């Protein structure tokens, strides 16, 4: 994607050269909007360093805008700052701050409307309601931006990168913090979310709905109010991400709701209240992930089927798996469970007796959450021990028939 | 000195003391006698305030026992079984009691030296024999030269030499005008000490007489003979009344 847009950019640049594209230098006392209006398509504007104190700048033609030393544009907590309503716009190295807040318009630092082939790169976007907002856009690249806010509550705030009805986006290498959602995708298809760091957002690090055939990988999601939510989507690939310390009363590393035909692989889930919460999801391949020190590694509702969990490591979780039903139509195999205390007589690295990852106490708390008040009491320890000897309450289909006796090297 | 009026105490259905009336004066050495379970220890403990009476009143030097704990400074008590915290030394036990009784600065330490406890003062209570512990109890009872001594089986478990020493001490104190109340099974030990005999049976006061009176009525001179005679002749007669 990056390469594609780079080529595009180079092509455009050539076209611009051919069209005798001009380069304009802009100072902070100049009105940028006026310069833009005068410039020809394909022109380059070089913005000098300084406080521009300008806002509501609308770009309606292909332009290249490059800031030197991060020229600052300010919305004074009242206005939007940049609106891009043209294709082939390239913006780099500017700082945008203090957008307004409105219940009628989603105010953004940089908003893309019906645009394609737009690149926003290396910008700093501070204290905006929405950082970068993409609406009905295609083939755009949002890269290496720092989008930072300090939102206090969900209602009053917006998202770091917000995309609605888009296709073929690349969101890469951005740092997103302090928004409602770090990245928000709704009806966005065939896109990539890569190597972003999303942390300290009030709600989700990544919020993802009706967005098919997307891939997100190498991202780090940490300390978000509720982790990452992926909903009503098929064909998502989630790989090599790190989900860390999404810890709170209603926090998950990933919340999966109505997801199908997807992959969760090579991720690390560390210290989350719930590693994966899965509801109404089918045909997901969960493999080679590490679940460590989570409250619940996974909560799998009975509405999930045909999912496969294999070759994962489960280490130091309070509960490995919890479920709300007795039916279990998913497959667990070849996982390493640190709580497994079976034996391996033939020394093939696979335990000879199955492992039941749902403890009796976890069954009880799932049915009656109030019973959680007895967490870590002597009684519940005894109950779990007794259940191990003579299982009667735990769902007996939920088991790993071939548990590993040694950790996977992941 | 000690006045007991209508003292009654029962443990459940068992009546340990039944309407006891007694008066004891200074200079008396009273031997408290009676079979096991006759109420001797309950009587002693009532005087000490360890047992709370059901009915009746005990006054000591006009202080009512139940209302005022200060009277106990006038009493030296030697319990039947002396048990002390295991890891305290003899020295610490004595020091502790001295510290509790801040009102005193003069101590009667005759028995401590007499028993040779000063030479073993760093021994812990746990390591002591029953007899030695008994000696510690005796020393504590006499430490503050009280006006009243209450000694529960004082000579039990003591070697003859120590027993003799203790008896001499009792005689001396009685001569000094103190009131001594002793329970003992070894009647010969009370020879020459006891001036009065109180006899309890089943919680009832059978008699309270001077030794001379009893000697006269029985015609015996040795104390154990006197008592044996009394038990044979007088007590059955009393019971039938």
């Amino acid at each position: 994607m990056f390469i594609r847009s780079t080529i595009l950019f180079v092509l455009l640049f050539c076209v611009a050269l051919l069209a005798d594209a001009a380069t304009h230098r802009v100072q902070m006392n100049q009105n940028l909007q006026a310069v833009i209006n005068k410039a020809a398509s394909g022109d380059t504007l070089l913005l000098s360093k300084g406080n521009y104190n300008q806002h509501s700048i609308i770009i309606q033609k292909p332009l290249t805008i490059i800031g030197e030393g991060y020229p600052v544009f300010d919305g004074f907590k009242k206005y939007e700052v940049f609106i891009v309503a043209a294709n082939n716009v390239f913006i780099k190295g500017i700082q945008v701050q203090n957008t307004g807040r409105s219940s009628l318009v989603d105010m953004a630092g940089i908003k893309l409307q019906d645009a394609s082939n737009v690149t926003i790169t290396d910008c700093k976007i501070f204290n905006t309601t929405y950082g970068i907002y993409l609406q009905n856009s295609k083939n755009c690249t949002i890269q290496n931006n720092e989008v930072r806010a300090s939102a206090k509550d969900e209602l009053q705030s917006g998202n770091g990168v917000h995309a609605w009805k888009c296709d073929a986006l690349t969101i890469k290498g951005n740092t997103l913090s302090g928004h409602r959602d770090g990245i928000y995708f709704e009806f966005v298809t065939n896109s990539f979310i890569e190597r972003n760091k999303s942390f300290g957002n009030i709600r989700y690090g990544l919020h993802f709905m009706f967005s098919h055939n997307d891939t997100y990988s190498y991202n780090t999601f940490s300390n978000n109010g509720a982790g990452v939510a992926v909903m009503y989507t098929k064909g998502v690939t989630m790989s090599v991400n790190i989900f860390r310390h999404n810890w709170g009363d209603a926090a998950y590393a990933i919340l999966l709701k109505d997801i199908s035909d997807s992959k969760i692989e090579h991720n690390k889930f560390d210290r989350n209240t719930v590693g994966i919460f899965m509801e109404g999801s089918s045909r997901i391949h969960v493999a080679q992930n590490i679940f460590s020190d989570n409250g619940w590694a996974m909560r799998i509702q009975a509405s999930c089927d045909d999912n496969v969990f294999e070759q994962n490591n489960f280490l130091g979780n309070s509960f490995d798996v919890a479920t709300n039903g007795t039916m279990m139509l998913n497959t667990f195999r070849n996982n390493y469970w640190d709580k497994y205390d079976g034996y391996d007589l033939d020394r093939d690295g696979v335990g000879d007796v199955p492992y039941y990852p749902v403890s009796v106490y976890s069954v009880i708390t799932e049915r009656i959450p109030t019973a959680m008040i007895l967490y870590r009491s002597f009684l519940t320890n005894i109950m779990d021990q007794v259940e191990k000897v003579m299982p009667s309450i735990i769902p007996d289909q939920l088991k790993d028939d071939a548990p590993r006796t040694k950790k996977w090297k992941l | 000195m000690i006045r007991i009026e209508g003292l009654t105490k029962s443990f459940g259905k068992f009546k340990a003391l039944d309407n006891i009336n007694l008066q004891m004066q200074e200079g008396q050495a009273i031997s408290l006698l009676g079979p096991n379970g006759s109420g001797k220890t309950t009587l002693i403990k009532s005087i000490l305030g360890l047992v709370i009476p059901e009915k009746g009143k005990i006054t000591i030097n006009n202080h009512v026992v139940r209302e005022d704990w200060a009277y106990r400074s006038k009493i030296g008590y030697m319990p039947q079984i002396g048990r002390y915290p295991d890891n305290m030394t003899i020295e610490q036990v004595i020091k502790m009691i001295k510290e509790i009784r801040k009102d005193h600065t003069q101590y009667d330490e005759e028995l401590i030296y007499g028993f040779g406890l000063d030479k073993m003062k760093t021994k812990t209570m746990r390591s002591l024999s029953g007899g030695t512990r008994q000696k510690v109890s005796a020393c504590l009872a006499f430490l503050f030269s009280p006006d009243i001594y209450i000694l529960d089986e004082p000579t039990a478990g003591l070697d003859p030499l120590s027993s003799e020493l203790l008896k001499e001490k009792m005689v001396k104190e009685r001569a000094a005008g103190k009131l001594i109340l002793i329970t003992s099974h070894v009647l010969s030990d009370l020879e020459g000490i006891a001036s009065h005999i109180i006899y309890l049976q089943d919680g009832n006061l059978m008699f309270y007489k001077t030794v001379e009176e009893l000697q006269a009525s029985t015609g015996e001179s040795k104390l154990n003979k006197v008592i044996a005679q009394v038990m044979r002749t007088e007590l059955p007669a009393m019971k039938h009344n």
Partner: protein
Amino acid sequence: MKTIIKYVLLDLLRNKIILVYTIILAVLSISVLNLDSNPSKGLLSLLNVTLLFVPIITILFATIYFFNSIEFTELLLSQPIKRQKVILAEYIGMASSLAAAYAVGVGLPLLFLVSGTESLILVLTGVLLTLIFSSLALLIFVKSKDKTRGIGIALVVALFFTLLFDGLLIAFIYSFSDYPIDQAVIAIIAFNPIDLARVLMLLQLDTSALMGYSGALFKKFLGSATGSIFSISCMVFWVVVPLFLSVRIFRKKDL
């Protein structure tokens, strides 16, 4: 009173059982904290050790001690001292030496290996449990006639609070799960010092989120400082009430 406390302490601090208790606690603490790379988990394991061992050991040791020192108590009572003072002094001496054993056995290793508020709260929890179960032991002592029966009652009380109470609680939760019982459950918890101790400690650790997960009231109650204050005050009640009752009963007890 100070004198008696001093000498009771002097005796108990040289007591072999207390010494062994301290050493066992220290060994357990060090091994548990070294085994777990995650200090929060080490604290949780230590909490389990505390909840399991402190109540039973404290109540048994204290009950036996009070019964064994009956003769000593009598001797003290034959001195011109108030009864209340004697019994209170014995309680303070007893409870503080056991508390010191816990503070040294668990507190010292924590100080060196995982110092922080959580560790402090754990030590506080253990100390409070010690005071509570010493207080209960005193009540058992003043209420029961002989040592054998006293030890029996002590065992039952310890077992009740460690296990039976929670069993009844879970039965209650099970049977009334259709009703909003969160509030009632929190109120019930107040009647078990061991549960209070557990909740108090869990509130200090990340794990509280797991409990908050299960209901809005828990979240509100456990998430705020109110939860900790509630637990601590209830525990203080558990020290004071049995102690007060013991002193009252002891005033009229026949020895």
